[in-house]
């Protein structure tokens, strides 16, 4: 009896420890990149950050590749290469499957920097070239304390290099996977709302309200294009209108006063596809790139 309790507690403890290990195993102390330029040292001025972000955003819109800049005080106790791959694994800069992301990491107090290059760009930015970008383009600026200039010059050279690679074109509408999810969500949300509404206020009014509502949600809340919104609205209207049995056209027992209003409250959020929120597209890294110091 006693021994069995002992065993049980021991296994319980072991399991608990295992859980702890798995928790600790998750990457600790690495910032996730939610903007194209992340400056944790306030080295760059606000205007410089905005200018750099605009440049990177324009490049992403034109070529599809994501470039991110991260400035940290120090990567200690980690080596900058180890730190770099952890940042890359966490943020997954670059498009999924294309793996065309580059992360420039500057550890200011360590006087070290690293270019982390995604799998898809290892052909056009091999390690030796990454090293040259660091040594020939960036560090001359850093040596005289011009961080903004060095980063800018490095980014421009990286862009030129990536220009030379044939990559799949960027998607026509910005914010690709999010839009798809938003599209499906509004469509299904609209359908469900339509079914519910048509049970309450009747088929015609219900399907119309749902169609209008889902169209509005698509534009105001998710920032989809008008054409997509129109498409969603008509789809919802048609499906609900045609498929819902039950009540007659005239059978709405309730007044329509309370139904439409709930959608409009969502408009406060505004379009989410702006430049402020941004994340990696799922690109993979394998430790390619180079490190340097100044």
């Amino acid at each position: 009896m006693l021994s069995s309790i002992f065993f049980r507690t021991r296994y319980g403890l072991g399991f608990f420890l295992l859980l702890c290990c798995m928790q600790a195993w998750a990457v600790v102390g690495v910032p996730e990149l939610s903007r194209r330029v992340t400056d944790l040292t306030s080295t760059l001025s606000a205007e410089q950050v905005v200018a750099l972000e605009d440049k990177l955003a324009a490049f992403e819109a034109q070529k599809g590749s994501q470039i991110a800049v991260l400035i940290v005080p120090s990567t200690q106790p980690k080596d900058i290469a180890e730190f770099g791959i952890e940042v890359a694994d966490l943020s997954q800069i670059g498009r999924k499957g294309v793996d065309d992301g580059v992360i420039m990491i500057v550890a200011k107090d360590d006087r070290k920097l690293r270019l982390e290059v995604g799998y898809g760009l290892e052909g056009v930015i091999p390690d030796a070239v990454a090293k040259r970008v660091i040594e020939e383009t960036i560090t001359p600026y850093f040596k005289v304390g011009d961080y903004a200039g060095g980063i800018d010059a490095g980014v421009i050279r990286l862009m030129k290099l990536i220009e030379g690679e044939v990559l799949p074109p960027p998607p026509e509408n910005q914010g690709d996977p999010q839009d798809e999810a938003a599209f499906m969500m509004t469509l299904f949300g609209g359908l469900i709302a339509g079914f519910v509404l048509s049970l309450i206020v009747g088929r015609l009014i219900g399907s119309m309200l749902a169609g209008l509502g889902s169209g509005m949600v698509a534009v105001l809340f998710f920032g989809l294009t008008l054409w997509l919104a129109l498409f969603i609205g008509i789809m919802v209207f048609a499906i609900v209108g045609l498929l819902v049995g039950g009540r007659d056209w005239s059978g709405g027992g309730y007044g329509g006063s309370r139904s439409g209003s709930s959608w409009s409250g969502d408009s406060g959020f505004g379009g989410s596809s702006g430049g402020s929120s941004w994340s990696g597209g799922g690109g993979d890294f394998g430790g390619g790139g180079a490190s340097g110091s100044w």
Partner: protein
Amino acid sequence: MFKRLIVLLMMTVLSGCGYNTLQSSDEDIKATWAEVLNQYQRRADLVPNLVNVVKGYAAHEKDVLTEVTEARAKVGALQATPELVNDEQALQKFIAAQGQMTSAISRLLAVAENYPQLKADGLFRDLQAQLEGTENRITVARNRYIAAVKEYNITVRSFPSNLTAMMFGYQTKPSFTVENEQAIAQPPKVDFGAAAPVNSH
């Protein structure tokens, strides 16, 4: 009716008891191991070029040069097959040989520091950057392999998936161990005593 129930039961038991996890983590191990081999191979391919460039400037550094060449030959002689992961002894031998190569290369690069002309050579600098990059990729690939083996081993060992593993003959797999880690990760020795006279004047 009973048959159907049993099939249903088997399906739930197999998917619930880690059979699928075993399969996918086993594949993960194969993929990550292939990447480890790939990067080691890449390094082995770079070494002859490095030796040639260094020879051009520092041919009389015979010790380090032969050391690297021998390490390279030793690595080349080992059969780096995907099946290596299932053979603990062969794996340790492979790891040891690669570790020797790592230290031989870092010694060669340390020696190269003494030759300003060599250091300024564009080809040498490129090779050095490539080697650095490859070492880093090896580290990344090894870490991913270690993580994959860890996940697999946990599945094989923990209840109730250990029963499934036993039934289908899955055994825990060896990984890069700590002792080897230390031997391989040992930084090249830098003799500060030799550099001191420069500062003393």
